[in-house]
């Protein structure tokens, strides 16, 4: 009892922080039910006077959101799975194997993270066009399958697995690949789930890349659809927030399912 009382200031702080974090979500969801007038009213209201479900129908019909959803889901899943596979292989080599130039190569790779993405946009566009991938799913997926951040994240995690495990597996005649698949991967589940989520969310939210690499409506994804509601002299907040709400649902669902693993993954790799 006393213990809990002592902790109460901590809970109070945590609660305040939680409220701050949740506020944008709360605002988004409540605004998505307001009338256009109320969404723009001044001073703003917190709770809608009446629920306007129609916003969702209007927002959904404003652009081909069904197609956008399927595209986002497909591209994000493919990118995340591919990203995890390549990162596991590369990270294992960097964490557990010895070869000439290992450190130089690793720092070179990490160094590429410093190059701002915007700078690479034009060269990347040229590459995609030359490959004849413009306006295809390959253009949206393949360039994002290899990913330095993932290699870095998993390397940190793999290094916490004791080398003795490999030594004894080797004595029993285990191959490197089998060791990776049967020992390292199961032991690293939290890190893999974390990486999967990072990659999935990154791909789910990608806007500029999709816009630049496609022009057909059928190739575009959810964030491009959200742009539809932002005008030059104002924004249709009641529709934008409705669309944003249905666009973030899958991510929230995914996070709830994988929450435990995700938190472990972040905590154990020392990433903040």
């Amino acid at each position, binding site marked *: 009892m006393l213990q809990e009382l002592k902790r109460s200031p901590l809970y109070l702080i945590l609660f305040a922080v939680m409220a701050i974090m949740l506020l944008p979500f709360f605002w988004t969801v409540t605004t998505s039910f307001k009338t*256009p*007038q109320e969404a*723009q*009213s*001044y001073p703003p209201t917190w709770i809608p006077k009446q629920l306007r479900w129609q916003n969702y129908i209007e927002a959904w019909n*404003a652009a081909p959101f069904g197609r956008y959803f399927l595209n986002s889901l497909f591209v994000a899943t493919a990118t995340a799975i591919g990203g995890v596979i390549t990162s596991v292989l590369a990270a294992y080599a960097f964490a557990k194997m010895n070869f000439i130039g290992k450190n130089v190569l690793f720092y070179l790779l990490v160094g590429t993270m410093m190059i701002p993405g*915007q700078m690479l*946009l*034009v060269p990347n*566009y*040229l590459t995609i*066009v030359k490959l004849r991938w*413009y306006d295809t799913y390959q253009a949206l997926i393949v360039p994002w399958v290899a990913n330095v951040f993932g290699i870095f994240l998993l390397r940190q995690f793999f290094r916490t697995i004791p080398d003795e495990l490999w030594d004894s597996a080797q004595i029993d005649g285990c191959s490197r690949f089998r060791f990776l698949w049967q020992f390292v991967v199961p032991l690293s589940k939290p890190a893999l789930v974390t990486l999967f989520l990072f990659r999935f969310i990154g791909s789910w939210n990608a*806007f*500029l890349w999709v*816009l*630049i690499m496609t*022009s057909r409506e059928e190739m575009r994804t959810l964030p*491009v659809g959200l*742009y*539809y*509601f*932002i*005008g*030059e*002299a*104002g924004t*249709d907040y009641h529709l934008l927030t409705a669309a944003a709400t249905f666009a973030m649902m899958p991510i929230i669902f995914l996070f709830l399912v994988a929450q435990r693993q995700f938190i472990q993954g972040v905590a154990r790799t020392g990433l903040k």
Partner: protein
Amino acid sequence: MYKKVVIVLAVLFIGVLAIGQVEIEFWHAMRGGHLETLEAITAQFMEKNPDIVVKLVGQGGYGDLNTKLIAAAAAMQPPTMAQFYADWVAAAYKDALMPLDDLIPEEILSDIPEKLLQACYFDGKLLTIPFNKSTLILFYNTDLVSEPPTTWEELIEMAKALTVDEDGDGTPERYGFGLRPYAEMFTTPFWQAGGRFFSEDMTESLLYSEPGLAALNFLLELKATSLYQTGYLSSPFGSGKIAMYIGSVAGIPYVARAAEGKVNWNTAVLPKGPVNNDSIYMGTDIGIFALNTTPEQREAALKYILYLLSPEAHMAWAKGTGYIPFRKSAITSAEWKAYMAEHPERVAVTEQAFHGFTYPNHPQWYSIRGVIGDMLEAVLLGDMTPEEALQWADETIEEEYLK
């Protein structure tokens, strides 16, 4: 629904006639109602020209559009036509666009306000044509203001009189004016006071001048009775919190929505400064790529542009989007007069459309505009005096962008 069926049928019909067709892509940044209007006008054009297919490709916002255009031009795969801000053309597309000088009939060119067309000339060549243009306009609450102010002095006086602080706590319950700090809030009064941005040879920045000081002092005086905020002013105006404000005509639909059932309002031409009551012309122009397009595509694009400029399409565009009509013959037509009778807020918009100015066609204008915006904010927040701020802006602009 009916409109959609017509479009689908039109597309099918065109599909049947697909032999010998030319396809052109038009990259744009239009969304929402603006896009719907563009789609309808384009469908009409294709109906009349079954041998041409215009593919409208949205490329997000303007910044995204420019990024993509740069990449596409570098890859030698630009669209047939696109929307451009003048400074984009000056920076990157001067040699990639098709000169339109001899292709647009003189009777159309002379029908467009000269100042508006000026910004479409680069090194003496006409490379673009005005497309979605807007100006600033005065919004005023007709429940509070019977006659809108016509000069700076009247505006300041009225704003003062309309500011109400009944409980005397220093924060007015109602403000006479609303002020949002962005570059055009300075450049427009600067121009109205006779200001010019650069010397003829574009090596000197001329903000620190009589007109510059006059504009800033005018805004400072106005600020004393203003709600000052960085967000759009349509909401506080619609709820009666501010009695007047100056903003883009593109804000009209938002004002209408915010004010519905709360306040009555109208628009007026901008109050006159020491020299004139011109507004900045905002918005983009359209041009045709000469780079890697076929003669047939260029010809089709030109046909499409001429259609957009036709009185019929031009008026449909202005009505559907709220952008300014800029052909003299269109606004003097019976159709437009009938439209204004039904939409009183468009009367002042139509008049203001012929009193405007444009920025110099400098490739770095976007960044220069940013410096002007920072300068204005520094003055309005009291961080710098008008003299200091104007000198700082001149120095920064000259050092970073003109030398």
